[in-house]
């Protein structure tokens, strides 16, 4: 067998680098209290002499401008998923080596064309350039061996390719213990015994070693060498359910698409319900001769309800004119998830459902950013005592009576009848975030009848309307 492994030595820092405005020295840290160690360093930091395992204190002493960051698991999963799909194009069995995280391996045994160094390297190098990630490649008869070769080769010792079993039998014993994916305590214990390479580990009596350190290290050795098999579950790449409907004639208006959309939703509903699935995210693509249009609809709960989705799509589509002739409608349920359905009660009160439907419709009509709820924030300063939250999020807290209508921006107030009363609510604070305030708040009846919430800025001496009680 032949396995190709791809290891990402600087995945976390390189993902962070993408969002930096300028090139800086960057290191991933593992903070334990106030002390930390470097887990990964980017190329700039490496060039400055920083190394993994270094303490942050030492690193910062060497390079004060070093930026420290922590992991972004979501970004890592996304990047690895993308690479898994790329490797899937080489061969169907792609596995994740969690113990060498992050590393992926693919069984290339059946693909003789790829078992030539140049081709493999060129392909992977191209992907690395396209994804802007550093990778190390290893090929070996076992997946673990390939991944360790990739790591070891990155340390500058030798080529990461071993295609012949006889060569592998000579190579794997030289792999350093420090690379073995065992528990840190086991590795430390082996190093304390003077065991530096797999060959020295193998030389020890198995029973004696197991009695002392448990079987873990030997099991790793067996899987590494190929003495025992190393079955791993292959990653799956499910296809999102989709349906394409060619239109009998080209359609240039949204109303004309309704029937086709209705049918597409029904087809997908059937498809999803047979698998007890539903989706929160729906992709609609309209194909014309000159161009294509697409849009994704997101709903709060997974659903397959045709009428609900149709109404939402209708509200969405009516926001913009259809300016080309459509000949094919394509609808896809993205990332379907398991959904057993919902049990209706005898005295079903549909108020909550209706409320959410209204919210969804408003979002489709006005856009997501235009529909939100308001929640209180624990801050004495009225300007910062509230925030926009998604519909349905918590209400937050408030500690005093406040106007129902709070202006986004306070209005200067000039009124001859205005004066500062004896009793005011004095609010001071915010110096720590650069938004320090010192204000005296009070209620004031506008000559026009409105009951205003007014404040006098104690530094400027001017009056402003912050909101209205009535």
């Amino acid at each position, binding site marked *: 067998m032949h396995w190709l492994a791809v290891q990402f030595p600087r995945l976390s820092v390189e993902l962070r680098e993408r969002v930096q405005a300028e090139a800086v020295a960057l290191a991933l840290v593992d903070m334990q209290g106030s002390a930390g160690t470097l887990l990964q360093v980017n190329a700039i930091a490496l060039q400055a002499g920083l190394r993994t395992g270094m303490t942050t204190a030492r690193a910062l*002493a060497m390079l004060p401008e070093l930026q420290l960051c922590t992991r972004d698991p979501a970004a890592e999963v996304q990047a690895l998923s993308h690479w898994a799909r790329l490797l899937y194009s080489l061969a169907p069995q792609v596995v994740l080596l969690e113990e060498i995280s992050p590393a992926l391996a693919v069984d290339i045994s059946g693909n003789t064309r790829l078992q030539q160094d140049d081709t493999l390297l060129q392909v992977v190098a191209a992907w690395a350039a396209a994804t802007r990630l550093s990778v190390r490649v290893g090929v070996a008869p076992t997946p673990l061996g390939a991944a360790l070769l990739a790591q070891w080769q990155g340390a500058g010792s030798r080529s990461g390719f071993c295609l012949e079993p006889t060569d592998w039998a000579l190579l794997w014993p030289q792999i350093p213990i420090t690379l073995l994916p065992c528990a840190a305590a086991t590795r430390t214990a082996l190093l304390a015994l*003077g065991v530096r390479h797999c060959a020295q580990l193998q030389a020890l009596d198995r029973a*004696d070693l197991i009695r002392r350190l448990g079987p873990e290290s030997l099991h790793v050795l067996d899987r590494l060498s190929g003495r025992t098999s190393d079955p791993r579950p292959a990653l799956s790449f499910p296809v999102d359910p989709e349906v394409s409907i060619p239109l009998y004639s080209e359609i240039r208006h949204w109303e004309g698409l309704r029937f086709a959309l209705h049918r597409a939703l029904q087809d997908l509903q059937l498809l999803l319900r047979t698998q007890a699935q539903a989706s929160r995210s729906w992709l609609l693509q309209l194909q014309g001769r000159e161009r294509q249009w697409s849009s994704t609809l997101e709903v709060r709960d997974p659903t397959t309800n045709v009428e609900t989705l149709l109404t939402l799509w209708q509200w969405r589509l009516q926001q913009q004119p259809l300016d080309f002739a459509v000949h094919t409608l394509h609808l896809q349920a993205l990332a379907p998830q398991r959904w057993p359905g919902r049990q209706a009660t005898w005295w079903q009160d549909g108020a909550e459902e209706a409320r959410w439907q209204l919210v969804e419709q408003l979002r489709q009509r006005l856009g997501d950013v235009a529909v939100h709820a308001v929640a209180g924030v*624990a801050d004495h300063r009225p300007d910062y005592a509230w925030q926009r939250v998604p519909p349905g999020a918590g209400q937050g807290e408030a500690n005093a009576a406040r106007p129902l209508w709070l202006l986004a921006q306070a209005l200067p107030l000039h009124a001859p009848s205005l004066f500062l009363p004896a009793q005011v609510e004095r609010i001071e604070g915010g110096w720590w975030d650069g938004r320090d305030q*010192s204000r005296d708040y009070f209620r004031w009846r506008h000559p026009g009848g409105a009951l205003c919430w007014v404040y006098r800025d104690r530094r400027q001496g001017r009056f402003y309307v912050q909101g209205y009680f009535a």
Partner: protein
Amino acid sequence: MCRAILPEYAELHCLSALSFLRGASAVEDLLDRAQALEYRALAITEECSLGSAARAHSHARNIGFPLILGSEIALTDGPRIVLLVRERDGYVALSRFITRARGRAGKGHYQAHMADLPELMGCLAIILPDSQSLRFDAADAIAVRDCLGAENVWLGVELLRGGDDAAQLREVLEQGRALDIPCLACGDVHMDRRSRRFLQDVLTAIRLRRPLADLGWALARNGERHLRPRPVLAELYPPELLAETLRVAERCQFSLDSLVYRYPDGACPAGQQRDDYLAELARQGLQRRYPQGVDTVVATQLEAELALVRELDYAGYFLTVHDIVQFAKGRGILCQGRGSAANSVICYALGITEVDPSRMQLLFARFISRDRREPPDIDVDFEHERREEVIQYVFQHYGRDHAALTATIIHYRPRSAMRDAARALGFAPVEIQRLTQGLAWWDGRQICPERLQEQGFDPTSPTIQRLITVVNALVGFPRHLSQHVGGMVLSATPLNALVPIEPAAMAERTVIQWDKDDLDVLGILKVDILALGMLSVLHRALDSLGMTLADIPAEDPATYAMLQCGESLGVFQVESRAQMSMLPRLKPRCFYDLVIEVAIIRPGPIQGDMVHPYLRRRQGLEPVRYPGPEVKKVLERTLGVPIFQEQVMQIAIDAAGFSGDEADGLRRAMAAWRRKGHLGPYTDRLIRGLRLHGYSEAFAQRLCQQIQGFAEYGFPESHAASFALLVYASAWIKCHHPAIFTAALLNSQPMGFYAPAQIVQEAQRRGVEVLSVDICHSDWDCQVQDGVLRLGLCLIKGLSPKEAERLLHWRAQGGALHSEALRHGLGLSAAALHQLAHAGALSSLHGDRHQALWAVQGSLPLPTALPMPVVPEQAPALPAETSAAACIADYQQLGLSLGPHPLHFLRKWIAQSGYRSIAEVRMQHHGRPDRLAGLVTHRQRPGTAHGTVFLTLEDESGMINVIVWPQRVEGWRRALLQGRLLGIGGRLERQGASVHFIADAMEDLSPWLGTLSTRSRDFH
């Protein structure tokens, strides 16, 4: 508002910075501000504390402002209340109340219950509103009223511009009427001025351990909790509520001056007067000290001291200290008085100090002065490992109610201020680490923006500007209360009637709430029970030799010869870099030379430029002249150069006609010179007196200038003499019994200037054979047998003394020592076995560390309850331990290695980089350029060195001192702060036997050390 019609007011609820992490202003600032606002009085009411009472009393008295003492209490089963002291009994009751509340909870906390209130007769109470609703619970209020009496209780109305002040006032007044409890105005004051609001916010964030941005409602709505001007108060409160504060203030007439402190009688036999008993003990003591007969001068001095002690009623104090010292000596604990007390013949006679008055010129006025009106202060050093026995004896003998440790107020320093400020402002942990590590211990109290810039922060950014402002405000601000290192206070009457007592962090210790600097208010006497590592060393060494301190031969030439060569590593007081350089120049030949040696390397003589003149005269390079016979008598022993405080005082007495008390006043003026910038009236008095006695104007002026050097601390001669006794003793033992000396030093760690690695290397250099830790031979302590030093199990990092004790007992009983027997027979823990194996202590049984660890791991039980068969094992095919690996493991587990020095393994690369060994460089001529590399063992930046940094580097061939001039320090700052292995380019400077290396290039080679564990000792 017209001044004449402004209502009068007394603030009755106010917290200062000594309500730690709540109040934002010093108590002095609060009193000054209250006076400036023309309040009628101010009550300082710390939370469950009277910690600021003494300093508040002093300051209020100085400025002539009425002070009321009290305390804010949050009852566990009731409301928050402010208790105000009305009269003396009330103060005593409150102090005891706080003591009981504090004693129920751990350090920093308290538990006060409603049931405790009835004992507070003599106090008035203000019930505070609920902090959320700002209203009162009726049941709680009635309960407090019933406990203390309706005429002693008020409802405190706090109008802080919360928006509903009018409604709040209305409701509270109604409640007051309904409950028949009068109301008064109070301000919940936390700061003297509104501008301190930012600091008060920061303290809240620190106290609640959350960033400011996350505090939400926990922060105060505004900055109203300050001492507000009376026009403002008049707008907020109805006049009757303001007037009520005056009625309360008028009833509170207590002053700390009405308290009487009485020192315990000491161990005085019944029926005998203290003074008579003291005299009896002292005269008997002198007889013992001088079996050949007491010198007339000494006897006369004794009687003079006894007369002054009788006049000032200090006999009890001396008897107490004598009692404590006798206890220690009875237990075989080495001890010795230090400081100005060594000027006293009484102390010598009682065995408290060891400075022989027949050999030294003592000045009792330095210790006790009639005019000074300060109680005596005797510091006694005890063996550091046994000091706790002495402290617990004092607690047991005098009782917990009559004895306690004094407190020390811990203030923020730059690093701790930066840490807390950055957390409060929401900096991430990684950023906080970077901010703090950029600060060096020599940087001073204020934060320099340049430091932050070096760490990659923009000092002009608003965020960093705010950080700097907050940090600079925090530096020097009180942080928390801690216990003094050894100052104990004793009282004949219950101590908790004078000041509250609370538990310390250490078990079995209690501490009063007053800082040591506050004791003078009541004239409370303090005995400093201090720990001195060298006494432990001497005790161990003398025990091994079967000797006592008195058995050590005096004035041994070999000992002085050793010191003259600068071979003083481990010797008390003279082992520092500066002392090692001075010894070959000063060349001590007698005991008094050691007294000078101890005192001359101090800021006082250095700043006063006494060191070089003294050395020149001693080396015959400069003539010694005296302007007059009186001066000659005083300065002859120091070749005409004043080195000791007492010499200045003696000159003032003998050559300028000062009395002893006046001379002590001059001494105190010297101490205050740096703060005030002048000696006050003493300059003219001294010059006039000297002129009257025939001394020239030039000499008088020069003497005044030299005196100013003593503004930085100079040793009293008596103190130097006390220390010189220990210098000589430790040097003699090192010279004649180096192995025993080394063992005693190692067994008394941590202490001293040097780490175990350097101590052992020094012993080896002196020809001591040192054997490694060995389970078959080592005891817990390092031992010497037949002149060979065996390292002890105490050096093994992490090994528990209890496990070691069991092991030694097992061994003594003939138990087998292989791993199986230790594990299954003795039941030694897996951790202990691993520690022994890692330290190489099993090597004689199993071979190198690898084999030993293999054997240890094989002896550990399997994770199964099933009985497993014993399977014979073959010898494991483990690689042999290399000597480099052994060195790393040695340093990790023992802090030292008996094998090659770590740099032995790096010598090839060091040489390839152009660096030579220290021994080679030391042989160079003066001024020759060279390059060397070494491990950093010490870093120093003395305050007198104007920014110069001194390093000590070590390699396999020896040690050398490196000097980094101030203009280089900033450029090499990171290497200086962080470097463990440094490569230095520069030139050698030689002054006789004293050698330094002046650096002009520096390279941090620390990455070459890999995982080698080293630490340097850094000193200011």
